[in-house]
């Protein structure tokens, strides 16, 4: 694994080399169980950030027997610094809708919804055109699957799948208690499969290439290709499709500006890797795969960076659970107090402990993941927190 170099991949954005919805057509000629099994074999994990094995999720969803089942494409791309889903929806929407349709066919669902963040409403006309194309082919293939678009209302938390479902039901976008999981009890109480835009696109690519080939990309732990939304101090900002499993040092060499001091992997909910760990950190192993990657050079204040993150979390927490609502405020106020000298340096350690409690006790991924960036920045850039 440590030999992995940075390798570009050309899978998700590869041009459409076959007739429209040909992958769907060919997949539908196979056995449903075989297809789900292929997904499991491919090692594909959810591309939204949580990294749940996609094949397993589909398998559970297929087992749910219900006349009404929903497939939701999570296009509420809200993580700061991520924009890869938008690019997919603009450039290869057919791959995304194919993935949804394959899921519908394999798992016996008839209703599909694309939950589009409100800021992407300008994509709706083109998406609707593509849906019309899909409808034509679905009719030809005898596939009963209706795809609709639902526009979100702009809260970060609605990217969390149960909050997303709540918001679709017209309620406050707040995460639910789990269990029950959406697979059993989701939108309107019906079995619901929620996958990220990139995951659905990747699913159709697994079906196109087969599990064995897809699995040959990446590392033993993370397979296939991954989109990176790159921003920050880089001359090559934009979306890059790479095989998983490169060292951060290779990544920095390719994309940095020569003065990189830290890389944020997996968005603000992910980890901040300092220069001294560039050589020993493999992207995609032990850290999240959300896709937002930010490069910081030595002109950046990491205090400002984490202050910015915390400001965001304190505002975007839904506010329902104690550790997340108040914890985010405490971390924010806490680093301000250390900076101003109101609290001693050692207070940073108390705050790290608090962030660990947030991880242990928060209701959803938002509060649970704050500690990732917070602990890594406080640990690695402690002097910047104080002086």
């Amino acid at each position: 694994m440590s030999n992995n170099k940075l390798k570009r991949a050309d899978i998700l954005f590869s041009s459409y080399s076959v007739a429209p919805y040909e992958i769907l057509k060919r997949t539908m000629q196979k056995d449903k169980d075989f297809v789900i099994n292929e997904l499991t074999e491919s090692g594909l994990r959810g591309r939204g950030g949580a990294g749940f094995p996609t094949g397993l999720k589909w398998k559970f969803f297929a087992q749910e027997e219900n006349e009404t089942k929903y497939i939701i494409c999570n296009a509420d791309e809200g993580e700061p610094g991520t924009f890869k889903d938008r690019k997919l929806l603009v450039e290869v929407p057919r791959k995304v809708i194919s993935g949804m349709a394959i899921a519908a066919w394999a798992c016996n669902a008839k209703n599909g919804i694309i939950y589009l963040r409100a800021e992407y409403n300008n994509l709706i006309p083109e998406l609707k055109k593509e849906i019309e194309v899909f409808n034509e082919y679905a009719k030809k293939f005898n596939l009963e699957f209706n795809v609709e678009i639902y526009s979100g209302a702009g809260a970060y938390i609605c990217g969390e799948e149960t909050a997303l479902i709540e918001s679709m039901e017209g309620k406050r976008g707040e995460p639910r208690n789990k269990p029950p999981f959406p697979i059993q009890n989701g939108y309107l109480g019906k079995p619901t499969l929620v996958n990220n835009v990139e995951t659905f696109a990747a699913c159709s690519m697994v079906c196109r290439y087969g599990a064995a080939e897809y699995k040959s990309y990446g590392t033993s732990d993370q397979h296939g290709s991954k989109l990176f939304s790159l921003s920050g101090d880089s001359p090559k900002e934009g979306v890059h499709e790479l095989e998983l499993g490169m060292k951060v040092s290779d990544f920095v060499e390719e994309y940095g500006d020569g003065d990189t001091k830290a890389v944020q992997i997996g968005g603000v909910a992910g980890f901040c890797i300092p220069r001294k760990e560039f050589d020993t950190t493999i992207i995609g192993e032990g850290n999240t795969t959300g896709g937002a990657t930010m490069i910081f050079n030595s002109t950046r204040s990491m205090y400002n960076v984490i202050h910015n993150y915390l400001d965001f979390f304190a505002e975007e927490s839904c506010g329902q659970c104690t550790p997340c609502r108040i914890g985010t405020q405490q971390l924010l106020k806490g680093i301000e107090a250390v900076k101003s000298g109101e609290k001693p340096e050692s207070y940073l350690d108390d705050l790290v402990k608090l962030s660990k409690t947030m991880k242990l006790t928060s209701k959803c991924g938002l509060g649970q993941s704050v500690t990732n960036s917070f602990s890594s920045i406080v640990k690695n850039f402690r002097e910047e927190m104080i002086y």
Partner: protein
Amino acid sequence: MSKINLIIDGQKIEVEKGMTILDAAKKINVNIPTLCHHEDLCVAGNCRVCVVEVKGRERLEASCATPAEEGMDILTNTAKVRNARKDIVSLLVSEHNTQCTTCYRNTNCELQDLAAEYNVDGDRYLSVLKPNIKVDKSSWSIEKDDSKCVRCQRCVRTCAELQHVNALTVSHKGNEMKISTFADLPFNEVVCTNCGQCVNRCPTGALTERRYFDEVWEAIGDPNKHVVMNTAPSVRVALGEMFDNEVGTRVTGKMVTAMRKMGADSVLDTDFGADLTIIEEGNELLTRLKSALVDGDKSIKLPMITSCSPGWVKFIEHMFPNHLGHLSTCKSPQQMFGAMTKTYYAEKKGVDPKDIVSIAVMPCAAKKYEANRPEMNDSGYRDIDAGLTTREFGLMIKQAGLDFNNLEDTEFDSIMGQSTGAGIIFGATGGVMEAALRTAYAVVTGRSVPFENLNITPVRGTDGIRAASIKIEGTLPEWSFLEGVDLNVAVAHGLKNARIIMDEIAAGKSPYHFIEVMGCPGGCIGGGGQPIPTNADIRAKRTKAIYEEDMSKPIRMSHENPEITQIYSEFLEKPLGHKSHELLHTHYRKRNRY
């Protein structure tokens, strides 16, 4: 139900599938602290105080929201769990206005208890309490102080699930998240019914009843004022809880003594007002039935619905403003009592009504609002000058330095101090219906209702809506039009159930002639002004005490109350007569829907 096996703190236990870890632990007396949990309400799982460790899982689980699973190995008392709970309580304290000494809920606050239990260090975190939070004192009944709110959303769930009112809701997110009304309007401008169920379930002092005891003390201390206290049936079966008596202890005699010792000039029984209500409302029902059945008058609204519960009355005014004609025009017992205090009582006692201060001690928050409704002054004076909750009254007893549990039992004063068992049972859901049927049946047939000991058990119980049908047979000549009629009645309690009843009426599909609605779950014994906590078990015990009190009364039908006979012969002349209409009946108004 299938069973599952699990281990909690090393102890093996078998429970029903689907049970939460919290409830499973309760079964073996393992106490897990909670804050957002309330057994009347759906699971929220948002305070995270109840977290426990499940072996094999890194993260802690909220025990109130996590179903127990086969083979789970749960630890509720590890360093990891204790530290997490302490952190969470510390966070809640850091967001809280910790001026406990000046808080109405001081010593009866769930956050205070938790902070004490986990010995929370006040300096652990910085204060994130928002500055300049204004207390909303716009309502006659309820005060809302966001600086004491822990965002548990019990109030929101109460208002939505139990009451279907939705006056309270969550607004904003993150650090700005708070409990709010529609467009953050003041309480007195929104759809709030003042039922106070939110107050009763608030774990802290964020929602409290508006207090009036300072005004009451002032009146008592004024030698020129003649203070008349009257008290509702539910108070006497719950007040004891404020003094560590077992739930369901009847403290009628001690309560009367306490009022007298506090300095009331006259201690009377609202149950007299209840008996009066039965006479007026029973006659109103019979009149409506006659107009509808005999005269075929289409303008007569049936079913007729009771109007004793001011939370319910405001609910229908907001939610079903086009169906107010179904409400009985009778004032509630409290207001009837007040109107009689300022007229009949004043006359009999030779006191100038302007010097009378009438104080109602109620299990209710909405009664404060009702007392302040502008139209409630038909005698030229306010029917009721101040409404107190059971809780305020308990506090006043403490302020007076009375050793409540060792007070002797004494009787209510006269006049308007005598009551029947029928008046007593107004306190429990179904009671008004039962009392009305006891009297109406007797009036119409000259015989007692055909139930053993007059206990009309079909209308009793805890089901949200209960229906019954009573065949009227052997009528007296003037009521012959009712011969053979099946009188269909229904009882609903909790506004959620009231809505179901009203939806039926609005759809023109209601099969009933007469309906009793109480705004609060369980009726007045579960009122918003009752001691905290209130839950299903406590409601059941208070209800049992109400029916015991009923059975202990020598007279158990309102029309046999000698003081009632006396007030009609000396003052009111006849039910639904001129004076009744002037003093005992009222009207309603349409209100907004937000």
